[in-house]
């Protein structure tokens, strides 16, 4: 397409608007996290803080034992935030468990969808399409009642199982088309060389599908790391909370000011944002194929 200098300028302008829109909340969070409660309250009409400080992070990451200047006015840190390392560990364990479990389960199922021409397996594909339309809250109310009756509340394994089930359908949707695109002849050659159907899948199709596995794995990790509703409803003790639940518990707490909140929000979003920047290419492909979840 030919572009005149005027259209070029207009396009730059449009890009700047888009860039500003995407960066604005992140800049706000960073500026909010790098100043004290005092300076946030002192000057309410300026963008840049009068003084910069890392005290918010210091207080949170020390579990409230190191009190910086921000505690001149307030001497209170919620218990949930004091146990931030529990939350970080729980979030990590749940996200990794769910990623591994869904990768294994979804690969096995996606192979049967892609390779075994079975009528009842086609039903599985329909189920995965249907599952995407069920609002999570519909599943969480009965799951809460069931988990409560079986004593599975307040367990990171209960949360992991629920997340795995919730994210599995997306995996089948992403992986099955990729497996189907691996030439069938490669598997057949392996079988002539002595592989069974299953080992041919393990040794030929699966290694060739690394990009699809990476994209699905990254997407699942991010969704599991970020998810609020499942652990919010199933877990309410500080030791088993995930990071999003800790963040949600600060809502409406009048003693926790924006500077601390922004710092903890940045701590929560950094791992998943880093992951998406590193695995950008794979995530883009996975989202384009599976049309996962937004």
């Amino acid at each position, binding site marked *: 397409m030919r572009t005149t200098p005027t259209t070029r300028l207009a396009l730059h302008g449009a890009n700047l608007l888009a860039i500003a829109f995407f960066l604005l909340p992140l800049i706000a969070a960073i500026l909010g996290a790098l100043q004290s409660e005092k300076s946030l309250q002192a000057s309410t*009409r*300026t963008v840049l803080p009068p003084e910069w400080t890392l005290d918010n992070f210091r207080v949170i990451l020390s579990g409230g034992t190191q009190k910086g200047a921000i505690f001149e006015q307030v001497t209170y840190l919620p218990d949930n935030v004091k146990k931030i390392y529990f939350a970080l560990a729980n979030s990590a364990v749940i996200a990794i468990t769910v990623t591994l479990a869904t990768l294994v389960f979804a690969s096995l199922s996606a192979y049967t969808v892609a390779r075994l021409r079975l009528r009842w397996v086609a039903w*599985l594909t329909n189920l995965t399409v249907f599952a995407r339309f069920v609002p999570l809250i519909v*599943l*969480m109310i009965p799951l809460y009642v069931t988990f409560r009756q079986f004593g599975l509340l307040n367990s990171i394994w209960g949360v992991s199982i629920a997340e795995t089930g*919730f994210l599995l359908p997306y995996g089948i949707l992403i992986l099955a088309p990729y497996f189907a695109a691996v030439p069938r002849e490669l598997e057949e050659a392996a079988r002539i060389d002595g592989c069974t159907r299953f080992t041919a899948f393990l040794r030929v199709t699966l290694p060739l599908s690394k990009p699809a596995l990476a994209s699905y794995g990254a997407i699942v990790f991010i969704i599991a790391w970020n998810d609020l*509703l499942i652990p919010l409803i199933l877990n309410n003790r500080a030791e088993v909370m995930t990071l999003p639940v800790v963040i949600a518990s600060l809502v409406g707490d009048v003693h926790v000011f924006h500077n601390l909140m922004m710092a903890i929000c940045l701590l*929560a979003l950094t791992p998943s944002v880093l992951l998406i920047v590193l695995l950008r290419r794979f995530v883009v492909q996975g989202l384009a194929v599976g049309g996962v979840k937004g």
Partner: protein
Amino acid sequence: MGRLARPAGATAEICDELHSLARKPRTRFSNEPSANLLGVVMNIPTLLTLALVLAYPISYAAYLSFHKVALAELRRGIFPFVAFDNYRRILSDPLFILSLKNTLVFSAVSVTAEIVLAVAIALLIDQRQVWTSRITKFLILIPYAVPPIANGLIWAFMYNFNFGFLNRILFTLGLIHEPINWAGNPSTALLALTVPYIWRTLPFAILLVHAALQGINPELYEAADIDGAGALQRFWHITLPLLTPIIVVILVLRTSFAFAVFEEVLAITQGGPGDATWVAAWYAYKKSFAPPFDIGVGAASAYVLALIVGAIAIAYVKAIYRRIA
């Protein structure tokens, strides 16, 4: 298995060799489990998990919605049957009707805005000769990774009446002289909620549109150029019609997710001011998990939400098929 037909000119030995080659894999494969058995075994983990956290909860939610399940019943473990009582209660509850209405407005506004923005930004990042496009392209994915609850709290800080970041920017630019109460005004609160939601879910829509754009044959544009079509005509007569299928897909998916919006409501308004931002998922959550923990009513309201989403999905899918046929 019958003898192979002997091709003209082939010796008997070659034919025998071919024959044994053709037979060999078959005898080997006969030791393997049948496709059906393999399919069952390989799907056991998935089927068990989906039965536990999908099929069973959906049916159990239906059961709960016809029973009285509150704190006392949960403790005793006995849920008395109340027929359609829970449904009658929510349908005669003005707050539930308001929640549905708010959900509808929220979804309509956010999905419409998202589709317009997604098409615009996807076209924008496609302009590779404009170097700022590459920055935009790099950034579009990031909101997807931000935890929804963190996104909500960040926007709560942006919107804050006294200390908020948006007011600070407008003060600095000299555009306002009194702070604006973005999310605290009942008439604008719901609209204020759509912006963070759009911010977080836009990457998904942009990526789908962008992928569809790559699939458009460039020759179509060359032909249009030769015919002297302007940029607007090219967009209207080539790009938009070819994007329609993916736009319908985005419409279906985004609407069904927007109907279940929850985190931003929790973080920014908690349903307020007053009840201006009560949405369906918030209603189901508050009824079930806040005093008096009326889980039966919550399940009924969640079921109504699911049925509406299901109906929308079916209507959309039918519309797509009619378009194709």
